């Protein structure tokens, strides 16, 4: 066996060992992009990330062919009630833990949509992880719901209202109002 084969085999082995490592440990669920008004110059993406592995995973970089650029943003509220969003250098998902990107908390900040994306459209993202590999995440565009802001980072379950058609939501709202 000559050196060239050895090199190829060792490369293949390293690739096999390293490529799926972090990506395989990171479960992404309920990835969605909020539909935005026409002409909107920015959109926001949300999802839940669960790290089922034994090592912390960081997401260093987000990109999508559908947008000019993308960042990971965090919303914060200062003592005066002023709300700001600012880019964070990376998002860490600790071993065995979940992080939810949800309205009012973290979001993918998506600048310059290439076209107008509407409910039902699919958008692919590429995440670059801390082991220098990347993974693809598919998100669906859907409408924001009126509840969106009452849920912070943690309270993810209720976000499933998002799947609910509008009229159903209204009935529920009216109902809860009568109870007041």
């Amino acid at each position, binding site marked *: 066996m000559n050196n060239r084969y050895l090199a190829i085999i060792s490369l293949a082995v390293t690739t096999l060992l390293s490529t799926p490592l972090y990506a395989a440990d990171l479960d992404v669920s309920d990835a969605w992009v909020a539909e935005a008004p026409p*002409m909107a110059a920015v959109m926001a993406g949300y999802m839940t990330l669960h790290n089922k592995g034994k090592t912390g995973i960081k997401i260093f970089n987000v990109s999508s062919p559908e947008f000019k650029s993308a960042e990971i943003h965090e919303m914060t*509220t200062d003592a*005066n009630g002023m709300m700001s*969003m600012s880019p964070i250098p990376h998002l860490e998902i600790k071993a065995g833990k979940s992080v939810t990107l949800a309205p009012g908390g973290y979001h993918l900040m998506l600048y310059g949509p290439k076209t107008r994306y509407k409910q039902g459209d699919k958008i692919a993202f590429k995440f670059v992880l801390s082991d220098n590999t990347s993974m693809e995440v598919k998100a669906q565009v859907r409408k924001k719901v009126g509840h969106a802001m009452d849920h912070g980072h943690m309270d993810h379950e209720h976000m499933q209202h998002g799947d609910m058609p509008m009229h159903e*939501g209204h009935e529920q709202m009216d109902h809860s109002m009568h109870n007041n």
Partner: protein
Amino acid sequence: MKRSQVILLIIVGGLSLWLGLWLSRDKAPAPIPENISSTLLPQGRLLPEFHLVNQENQPFSRDDLVGKWSFLFFGYTHCPDVCPAALTTMQWAWQILGNNKTHQNIPRQMVFISVDPRRDTPEVMKSYVKYFDPSFIGLTGELPEIDALTRNLGILYAYTPEGKDGKNYSVSHSGQILLIDPKANLRAVFSPPHEVDKIVGNFISIVDYVKE
């Protein structure tokens, strides 16, 4: 100080105190109903004059708030998270009120006011607010006019440093939804996080409270 002057001072002081009490005697507000959880201004406070333009590039001033209840929210269209959430809440509130048997005929309007007029032209505001409801109003204009309102209403905003291309700056801002009564008085402040049923329930209680 002479003795007579001291006596005069006491009399004047006493008179003004009595006058103050007398003037406020029948203005004493009714007790605030328990089911109101927003910040309520029992007497209301008149908004300052302001001159902005709506999404049709038509003038919009304080007079346009007279005769109906107005929900105001300050934000900017390059805001993908907080502003759409607040406007969606207003959209739902609008629709729920439209179906409310006892209060659906109360005159009201939903108003989104830009604190980023450099990017938010009337045209941009038009497509933005229309997305939430064709009846929604989007205001923009000169910064000093916007500031006249925000300062008076306790709304804060600040621009973040610009990005590489000079366009990707964002705007930090307060998240309250303000309720203005049909005499252009600030009546209530809803603080985030906004819940649509809370806003609708409070609105109905406040309308009934102000009517009494």
